[in-house]
């Protein structure tokens, strides 16, 4: 099989086009449907690694510390990310619990872990056999990671319960906000094409 490094096919409309070298411009777009064809390598190659590590550290308090506290008639309740899943499971909504588990816990965690692993491998110039599988799984997990939707969910829950009793935003929510910023930075500075080229160089 021959490979065509100068030609690009648009992922959304399949138009073949040759690209000018990507030095000055940050991104190249498809001339027909405006899809992103290629991205220049990030200016700070370590940003992905740093954001990934930062996110992994913040992941612990964001999942262990309570997010919200609700007080009504002297009784107090609070929640963590994992407790919500557990509670749905106990109420016998197992399918729902699994979907919430995937989207709010597993997918963000694996996405961070795999992106950090990929960035670390490139940083150390070490290419384990699981490298290509990690990129694929990381891409999949990014699609199902919905922590930003969860954050808006916290906000909606907060506003909804405001009139019924006393509700406070606790430290876990702040950690979750930090985690979200790390996740966004990590996803934006991740260059899949660069990772794949690294994998290809080490294969031959």
């Amino acid at each position, binding site marked *: 099989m021959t490979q065509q490094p100068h030609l690009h*096919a648009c992922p959304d409309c399949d138009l*073949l086009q040759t690209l000018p070298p990507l030095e000055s411009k940050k991104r190249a777009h498809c001339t027909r449907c405006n899809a992103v064809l290629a991205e220049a390598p990030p200016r700070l190659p370590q940003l992905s690694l740093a954001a990934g590590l930062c996110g992994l550290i913040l992941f612990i308090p964001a999942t262990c510390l309570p997010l*919200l506290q609700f007080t009504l008639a002297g009784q107090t309740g609070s929640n963590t990310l994992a407790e919500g899943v557990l509670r749905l499971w106990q109420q016998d909504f197992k399918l729902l619990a699994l979907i919430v588990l995937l989207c709010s816990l597993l997918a963000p965690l694996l996405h961070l872990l795999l992106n950090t692993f990929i960035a670390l491998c490139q940083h150390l110039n070490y290419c384990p056999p699981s490298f290509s599988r990690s990129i694929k799984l990381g891409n999949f997990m990014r699609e199902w990671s919905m922590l930003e*939707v969860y954050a808006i969910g916290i906000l909606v829950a907060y506003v909804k319960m405001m009139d019924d009793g006393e*509700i406070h935003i606790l430290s876990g929510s702040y950690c979750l906000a930090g985690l979200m910023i790390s996740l966004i930075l990590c996803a934006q500075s991740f260059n899949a094409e660069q990772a794949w080229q690294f994998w290809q160089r080490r294969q031959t």
Partner: protein
Amino acid sequence: MNAATAKQHGLARCQHCGLLSAMPARDQHHLARCPRCHAHLYFRRHHSLQRSLALCLAAAVLLIPANVLTIMTVVNLGQGVPDTIMSGIIRLWQADLRAIAAVVFIASIVVPIIKIVALLLLMMVVQFRLSLSKQQCTALYRFVHLIGRWSMLDLFMISILVTVVSLGNIATVDTGPAATAFAGAVVLTMLAANSFDPRLIWDLEHHDKH
């Protein structure tokens, strides 16, 4: 040939790693593998329309119980008030929380319906060769992808409320059967959007010319 697609040149772009490589000459799609990441290589997603249509219809069916049945019951001092998606939104609106009511309305009612209608429209464009703007169809497809995840908002909110408001006899929140149906509908529409191949829209252009 001014605007040629990769397919016309016998080239295929890998769905996983984006590498453009030549498809093996014989038409054995299922055997071809990407030379870089060893994923299956194909010109277009297989059975894209059939899969997407099936998932879309299943999601549309699930939206009925999701909107008719109770999604959440707030039990206050032993008295339960069952809420459907819509009655919850109306309650928020009446409590003067209009901004939040609008957010929940968009996320749980407008977004799923827009997604299903938009996907069905795109499938009709491909199937019946409707002459709509291909740029706009592609933009619509990207929009469907972008908004898909936001329907999970209501479910996350329920998972938060269920734990925060568990005050024994004073107040609890119970999940209703609509929640599972709604979650199913959201996941199915996301899968439907993933199975639809936007390149099919552009293939029409090349068919028209011949």
